[in-house]
């Protein structure tokens, strides 16, 4: 049984009472009267229930910063289904990639009968079941009651905000959407809910942004960041403060380094990997190598491949029992496409090992990962390798074990670099890997 803090209850009640007197929605929602709806598990967790409350009660903007592995996609699906089936609202969901849109649609298909996936006619059909796939012309919200339409942000931009106008727009992976795109989505709904991971790689913008340098509300910024800067007084922030993927050791490293404003806790059930000698592998560890040939030095990719290979056949222990780790349980993450390609070649006989760049593996997880440090091989730290978002993605894909392959010289490179926030973050991470580095022989 859960005991609710009295202060929090009264606070919410005050908001509900005061807010209900403010105004009425433009279209009265037809709420389902009964307490049963398939997504009702959203009420089981006070944080997700809080998001539902904020959106349902009419907060114009709700931002949900989430830790890695906090269950963002689950929240989006539960929230959309609840708002549609329980609150009777028309809900738009904007995903940032076609894969994410299909994933949300699949989850929604299990939670509600009212979901549709808006999908372009070009290209391959979406890999979805139990959800209606519609083209631009066929997409409509139900004439009465609630409904959900899922599409990519790019697809929404080509949709008609008059015929597909909705009550609430949920933006998944919102830190990968630009503020400019959020404005377009705003034409569809007076309410937005932004769910995403603030520590990851910023939106990919190919054009120059120098015109808006220094602006806190620049169009290329991650949508929630600029939204908070522009409309702080109108924004409700609900933090998803539990990670179900990262263990305590990784959380202790990643949270202070990359999420200073988002304290979060590991709720992952105990998991570990035991090597062939019976030793329990640390949750996250690093291995220094002498690197003289730059980022493409073969020693780096060889070590990644060898380490990934060595993990296969070790024992994974979870709450469900113990089993052999297979190639499908292992991921190798590299900063550069060429490095990933080389590792992929070295592991060609293990096709199940996922090998990719940070951008490619964003949002994915495996029990074990091998990470090629983004500054390995560099003697002059550059923007690409220093990007904290990239490092954060790379260090937060694993559940039970991560091995970070590093360049012995990186610590000295960081110490001689011009101080900056990115350098500070990397130094923090480096110091946690190598607290006794000063004793190294660096010759």
């Amino acid at each position, binding site marked *: 049984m859960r005991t*609710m*803090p009295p202060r*929090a*209850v009264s*606070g919410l009640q005050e908001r*509900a009472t005061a*807010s*209900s*007197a*403010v*105004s009425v929605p433009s279209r009265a929602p037809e709420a389902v009267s009964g307490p049963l709806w398939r997504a009702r598990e959203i*009420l*089981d967790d006070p*944080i997700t229930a*809080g998001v*539902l*409350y904020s959106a*349902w*009660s*009419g907060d*114009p903007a709700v931002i949900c910063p989430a830790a890695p592995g906090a269950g963002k996609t689950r929240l989006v699906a539960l929230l959309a289904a609840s708002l549609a089936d329980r609150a009777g609202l028309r809900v738009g969901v904007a995903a940032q990639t*076609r894969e994410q849109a299909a994933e949300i649609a699949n989850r929604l298909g299990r939670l509600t009968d009212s979901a549709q996936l808006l999908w372009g006619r070009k*290209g*391959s059909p979406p890999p979805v079941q139990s959800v209606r796939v519609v083209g631009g012309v066929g997409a409509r919200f139900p004439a009465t009651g609630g409904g959900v339409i899922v599409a990519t942000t790019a697809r929404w*931009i080509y949709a008609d*905000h008059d015929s597909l106008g909705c009550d609430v727009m949920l933006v998944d992976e919102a830190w990968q959407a*630009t*503020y*400019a795109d959020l*404005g*377009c*989505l*705003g*034409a569809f709904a*007076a309410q937005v809910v932004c769910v995403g991971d603030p520590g990851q790689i910023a939106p990919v*913008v*190919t*054009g120059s*942004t*120098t*015109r*808006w340098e220094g602006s806190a509300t620049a*169009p290329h910024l991650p949508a929630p960041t600029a939204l908070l800067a522009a*409309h*702080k007084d*109108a*924004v*409700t*922030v*609900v*933090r*998803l403060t539990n990670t179900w993927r990262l263990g305590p050791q990784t959380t202790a490293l990643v949270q202070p380094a990359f999420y200073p404003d988002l304290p979060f806790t590991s709720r992952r059930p105990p998991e570990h990997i035991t090597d062939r000698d019976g030793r329990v592998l640390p949750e996250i560890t690093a291995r220094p190598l002498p690197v003289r040939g730059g980022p*493409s030095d073969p020693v780096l990719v060889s070590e990644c491949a060898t380490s990934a290979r060595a993990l296969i056949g070790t024992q994974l222990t979870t709450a469900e029992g113990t089993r052999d780790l297979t190639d499908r349980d292992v991921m190798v993450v590299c900063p550069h*496409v*060429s490095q*990933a*390609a080389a590792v*992929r*070649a070295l592991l*060609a006989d293990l096709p199940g090992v996922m090998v990719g760049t940070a951008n490619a593996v964003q949002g994915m997880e495996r029990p074990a990962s091998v990470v090629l440090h983004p500054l390995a091989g560099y003697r002059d730290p550059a923007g690409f390798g220093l990007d904290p978002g990239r490092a954060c993605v790379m260090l937060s894909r694993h559940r039970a074990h991560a091995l970070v392959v590093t360049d012995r010289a990186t610590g000295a490179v960081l110490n001689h670099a011009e101080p900056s926030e990115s350098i500070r973050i990397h130094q923090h991470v480096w110091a946690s890997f190598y607290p006794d580095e000063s004793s190294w022989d660096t010759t």
Partner: protein
Amino acid sequence: MSVEWFDLGLRLAARERGGPVERLRHAPVAPGAARVWVAASEGASGVQVRAAVPGGPVGRADGGECLDLLGALGVSIAAPEPVTLVVEDESTLPALVALARASDPASSRGVVAAHVGWWAERSDFPSGRAVLDVVQACRSRWVLGLAPSAERSLSVWAQGVEDERAPLMLAELVSAGSPLPLLAVLVEDELASWEYAQTAHAEGRDWRHPDGTGRAALGLRSRCDAADVYAAALLSDPLYRERAVHTGHVVIGRVVEASGRRIGVECARLDARLRPGSQVHGWVGGVAGGSLTFGGEVLAASVNGGRLVLSVAVVGALPGHGDAVTLHDAPPNVGGQVSGRSRYRWHYAARRSWLTTGRAPVAARREVPLSVLVAGASDDGQEDQR
């Protein structure tokens, strides 16, 4: 071979030859337009400017008179055609913008200042039609037998030229020959933006005003579209493609499977940037080019026996089993880009949302069942920013 080795090879070839080696066969700069070279520096009495047009003498001015000098050289928003600003460094344009911002819009300098404002906005666009940094343009077209950092100086490109108007000569050189094919698209956009700026000036709108939400959003979209077109323009250059093979942007391979309109391409390298879902342009033949061209979409990518195999659904000419093929990302659909910008404009112009107008939102409250309120009440992660 890595791209670093490829670049080093070009540099060594330039050193051996004792002259520049081409990176591009086409000109990376759009032709046409009148040009004015300007070099600004900080002097004791403020900003000092040297400026000239092709064939003309070098004029000098300082402070607010710099704008008068530019006006005398034909820089005016009221002129029928825009003038290309030729610079040799990154500091001249900001200095001119500072002068323009400080000028009186109602004075005769207002028309010059508005043109400078247009330069400032268009300097983010890559055609080189509004603002041409000759050193950057030379570096994109040629490589010298020097360390990369040495190439950032005008003097190495204008070696032996005593004339301070050397940037104008280099501008002529770097734009000689046929331009990259898609540059015409960027020029068209440039001219449309010039007309917009002229209209805005005629209607009394001040270019100094910061961008509103919609204008900034559309500006970003335009910049990204232009950057994507320019990236595709570079891929249409055969010399650029030689290098792009080593970055994974161009894929060479051989057809190892052919079934209906679907082919499997075994790639020569593993580091292809083409992914499932990528729209591709390809042809039968090597990286230099070929006659049988086709389009398509990458359906799957897999590694078989250490070789990357891309499964491609083909539209157009159908390569046969065993054919050597070259693939790269399909160029952006320019019509689609225009349509995308128009949708953007339409969404923002609707002004139905506080997000598009930038105004503070007014909450439209709904009643919430007690069960939801109670379930969310113990959330200690929630924080109302109000």
